[in-house]
């Protein structure tokens, strides 16, 4: 070869007609559409792509498949983007990471020269004494450790979404095996989903030689003709979970795939060789060199050394010559010899071992030994590129997650046994390249047969496979050599060397799982893709165990790095709106999110709303309340057993406040219920528990096999509460009903027309005033509401929101379950002891409450007023005694009616009305006094008016 080499033809994925630019560390870089960021940077002469985790050594491109950690960069504010597979876009802002001041000159490189003082596990050994220095260590370590920085200001909003897919056969990987598997399964009659992480089907065929193009095209056109096959490109599967659930990600989309059969064809990958300075920029996996040239049209170097044996390495030598890369030498590892017949025209060194690579910041040459010759007698070979044609190992993360185990046969890793519903084919199963398609087709046919589509071709295919399987050629596998040279990296992600692993084993971490945790090998971004098998081999050798006995570390999802935003992708969460939503909207309501509902918090001035209810009349939308009908011969008995109080003695037409507990005697829900007939009840429950209460009633109805029916009417009915001293005057204008106290007394229920709409009216007093809760069909809610508003105009009727209601009920001392109670609150302690009917033979919570009654409660929910009348503690503040927390404030507001601060709090049971206690708020202890409840209208004259 003479003169400068010809430029390479454009890469398979690039479009030279569409040039674009992006910036890298403020420098403008030209690129063409379809290139990856890293390929464009490499073409622009960038060689250092990142700095290593611990020693800050310069790292260059290495795998080009998105497996290794060498090309992680910050792209448009997103840290740790694998730039070797990330497509370049116009105007992108790309920055290096883990380096200061720049990737080329990194101050912390000093750690590389201090490596002797930073042995394996140094942070466990160095940083624990003297103890007082730990905060300093922690500050420094936290600043240095970690990979990539999240800039919360520039983080792009990710609109991630979830999609559910269902199929009969799912094929993971669209290489030769995967394409054949999908075709086979579809021909047999199965519905097939084919997932490929690259932008194109073809797998490793795309990288190797342009000769494969025709073969790929044929397969693709056969697949696209097949109606039963759905193909998803740029979709990488990162987990296999129980129930044959696959998780895959495509950009911002998370796929949850249920497939009855799974065929994994994720192929094989190469792993690095272990020698001194094996991480220098300029050292590539051979497939990386091919991908850089074939896919992106970029030449990795000019003078190369190839290391590796077998047919693949020989083909590679030819391929590199085709790419215009000058082959300086081909190193054949021990165990592989050149046949007399094939004498290539480039120098071949047999029985060669790589000792070290040298160069400052980039590869300048390698030093090798031949056979048994001593290291001192080694040979230098200058070069700017080293291609490691290491033997393929299976990319089997998903299979390991599924529980499959692997063993080595003639250098090939092959699956042990079978896992139900999961098959492997091609490179991932250790099959040699020429049998990939055959095995893929067989597994596809088998998977189809397992879901009931038995093809006549299956038996013939199985025979062909059995014949082919016996012909697979053995692979030459090197074992890690012993050497005293220090920088022989096993784990690139975490900078763990061969020596570190040996030291860790010597220190007693000789189980592969403890060795992993102590040395942190395989725990970096690649998750063992580059080093898992080397770790296994070193561990086996150092402990004198077999590889099978050593085993491998546990594989867990995700198999590839994914954005947390994708995992956090919002599920389907509908917003619930009441039938009066648009009225509130028009009245400029401030919204409050309550258990999925939108509720008006207020219409601007909650204090005025409170005052309207106390002095005139107010109207609130309470459509979100749970509304439940229970009917049947056993309805009364069911409620007797569920609620704490009596329900069978309630007379038809009357209403009652009821509370229910769970089996442990903990407050569960409360609400007002009414008896409509001898076998018919109408119950309300809190908004947040609407689902749970219906399920609870239904569970026990079913368990006790009672003849009753439970129906939720929450969405079917709207409800509104008309409350205030003038409520009767307003309602009388709209309702066809005698509203006099004698005809419609407090705590009773009536059915009547309001504004011509059939309604159910409950006379109750949650807010402590004369009030009517009006329940009507949702579709007519607007009419009723509007009529009441019009009728109330002359009485100064004001709509009020949740905030005003909270103040009003607090003045009245009514508790809200969930707000004023928690998972430890019992009715006896919450001031509801008057309600518990211990005379009933059985109800949920009877026994635990009985025991508590005998023992006596330890704390109590009480009302309090602050000594300083206008001081309102924050809800959640602690009640303290002698610096110890003994309770907490659950509700607190300034009462516009009583013109003072008041609230509810849990305090020790021994405190009585008039006693003083202290609330800790912003580190000050503020006095408060236990007050009698209710604060407002203690005789209850107003609700009964």
């Amino acid at each position, binding site marked *: 070869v003479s003169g400068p080499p010809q430029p390479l033809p454009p890469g398979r994925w690039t479009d030279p007609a569409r040039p674009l630019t992006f910036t890298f560390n403020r420098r403008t870089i030209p690129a063409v559409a379809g290139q990856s960021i890293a390929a464009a940077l490499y073409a622009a002469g960038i060689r250092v792509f990142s700095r290593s985790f611990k020693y800050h050594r310069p790292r260059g491109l290495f795998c080009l498949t998105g497996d290794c950690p060498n090309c992680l960069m910050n792209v448009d504010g997103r840290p740790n983007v694998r730039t070797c597979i990330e497509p370049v876009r116009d105007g992108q802002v790309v920055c290096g990471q883990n380096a200061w001041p720049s990737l080329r000159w990194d101050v912390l490189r000093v750690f590389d020269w201090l490596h002797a003082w930073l042995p394996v596990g140094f942070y466990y050994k160095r940083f624990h004494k003297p103890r007082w220095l730990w905060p300093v260590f922690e500050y420094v370590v936290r600043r240095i450790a970690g990979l990539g920085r999240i800039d919360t200001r520039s983080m792009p909003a990710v609109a991630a979404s979830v999609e559910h897919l269902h199929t009969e056969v799912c094929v993971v990987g669209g290489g030769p095996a995967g394409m054949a598997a999908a075709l086979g399964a579809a021909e047999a009659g199965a519905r097939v989903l084919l997932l490929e992480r690259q932008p194109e089907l073809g797998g490793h065929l795309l990288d190797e030689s342009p000769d494969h193009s025709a073969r790929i095209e044929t397969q693709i056109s056969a697949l696209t003709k097949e109606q039963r096959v759905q193909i998803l490109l740029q979709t990488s599967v990162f987990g296999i979970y*129980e*129930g044959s659930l696959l998780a895959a990600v495509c950009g911002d989309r998370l796929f949850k795939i*249920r497939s009855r059969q799974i065929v994994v064809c994720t192929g094989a990958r190469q792993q690095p060789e272990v020698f001194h300075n094996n991480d220098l920029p300029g050292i590539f996996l051979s497939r990386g060199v091919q991908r850089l040239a074939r896919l992106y049209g970029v030449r990795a170097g000019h003078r190369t050394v190839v290391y590796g044996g077998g047919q693949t390495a020989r083909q590679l030598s030819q391929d590199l010559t085709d790419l215009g890369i000058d082959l300086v030498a081909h190193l054949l590892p021990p165990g592989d010899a050149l046949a007399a017949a094939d004498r290539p025209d480039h120098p071949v060194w047999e029985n060669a071992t790589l000792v070290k690579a040298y160069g400052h910041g980039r590869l300048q040459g390698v030093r090798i030994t031949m056979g048994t010759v001593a290291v001192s007698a080694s040979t230098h070979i200058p070069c700017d590129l080293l291609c490691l044609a290491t033997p393929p190992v299976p990319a089997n993360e998903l299979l390991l997650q599924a529980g499959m185990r692997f063993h080595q046969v003639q250098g090939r890793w092959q699956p042990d046994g079978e896992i139900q519903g999961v098959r492997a084919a091609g490179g991932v199963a250790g099959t040699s390249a020429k049998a990939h398609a055959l095995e893929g087709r067989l597994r596809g046919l088998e998977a189809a047969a397992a879901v009931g589509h038995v093809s006549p071709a299956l038996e013939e295919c199985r025979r062909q496979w059995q014949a082919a399987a016996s012909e697979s050629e053995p692979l030459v596998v090197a074992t890690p050599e012993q050497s005293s040279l220090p920088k022989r990296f096993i784990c690139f992600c975490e900078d763990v060397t061969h020596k570190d692993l040996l030291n860790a084993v010597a220190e007693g971490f000789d189980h592969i799982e403890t060795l992993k945790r102590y040395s942190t090998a395989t725990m970096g971004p690649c998750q063992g893709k580059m080093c898992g098998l080397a770790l296994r081999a070193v561990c086996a050798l150092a402990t004198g165990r077999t590889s099978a006995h050593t085993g491998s570390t546990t594989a867990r999802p995700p198999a590839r790095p994914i954005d947390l935003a994708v995992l956090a992708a919002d599920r389907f969460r509908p917003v619930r709106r009441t039938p009066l939503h648009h009225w509130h909207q028009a009245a400029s309501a401030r919204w409050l999110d309550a258990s999925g509902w939108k509720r008006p918090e207020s219409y601007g001035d909650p204090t005025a709303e409170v005052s309207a209810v106390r002095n005139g009349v107010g109207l609130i939308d309470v459509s979100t309340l749970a509304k439940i009908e229970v009917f049947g011969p056993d309805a009364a008995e069911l409620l007797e057993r569920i609620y704490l109080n009596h329900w069978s003695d309630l007379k038809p037409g009357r209403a009652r406040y009821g509370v229910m507990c769970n089996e442990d005697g903990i407050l569960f829900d409360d609400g007002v219920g009414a008896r409509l007939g001898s076998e018919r009840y109408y119950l309300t429950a809190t908004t947040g528990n609407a689902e749970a209460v219906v*399920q609870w009633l*239904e569970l*026990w109805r*079913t*368990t006790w096999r009672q003849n009753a029916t439970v129906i939720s009417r929450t969405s079917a009915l709207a409800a509104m509460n008309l409350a205030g001293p003038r409520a009767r005057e307003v309602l009388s204008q709209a309702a066809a009903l005698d509203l006099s106290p004698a005809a419609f007394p407090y705590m009773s229920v009536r059915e009547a027309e309001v504004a011509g709409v059939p309604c159910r009216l409950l006379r109750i007093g949650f807010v402590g005033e004369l009030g009517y809760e009006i329940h009507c069909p949702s579709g007519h809610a607007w009419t009723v509401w509007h009529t009441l508003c019009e009728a109330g105009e002359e009485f100064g009727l004001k709509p009020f929101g949740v905030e005003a209601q909270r103040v009003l009920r607090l003045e009245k001392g009514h508790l809200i379950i969930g707000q004023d109670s928690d998972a430890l609150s019992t009715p006896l302690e919450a001031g509801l002891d008057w309600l518990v009917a211990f005379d009933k033979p*059985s109800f*949920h919570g009877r026994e635990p409450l009985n025991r508590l009654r005998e023992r006596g409660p330890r704390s109590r929910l009480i009302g309090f007023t602050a000594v300083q009348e206008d001081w309102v503690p924050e809800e959640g503040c602690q009640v303290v005694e002698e610096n110890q927390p003994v309770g907490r404030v659950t509700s607190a507001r300034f009462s516009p009616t009583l013109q003072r601060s008041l609230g509810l709090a849990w305090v020790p049971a021994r405190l009585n009305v008039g006693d003083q206690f202290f609330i800790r708020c912003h580190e000050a202890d503020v006095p408060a006094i236990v007050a009698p409840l209710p604060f407002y209208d203690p005789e209850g004259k107003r609700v009964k008016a």
Partner: protein
Amino acid sequence: MSFLLSCPNCGTREVAEFRYAGELLRPLATTVPPQGANLPGRQRERWFHRFGCRRWLWVERDLRSNEVVTTGWLEEAPS
């Protein structure tokens, strides 16, 4: 947890459609709350098909493998 459960009404569905409600214990006369055994092996459980027919089921499941052995209506659960 992503196994599949078979609802007698709706057919085989993802477990996420259901609510788990503990071991199936003898029907309560509501005296002392009975305690579950929570032992490895097969267990009878109560499940509610929340995003389906909204009915209560009983399920026999192997706690070690999440293999679902039997499902049926809670009313018809063996006592």
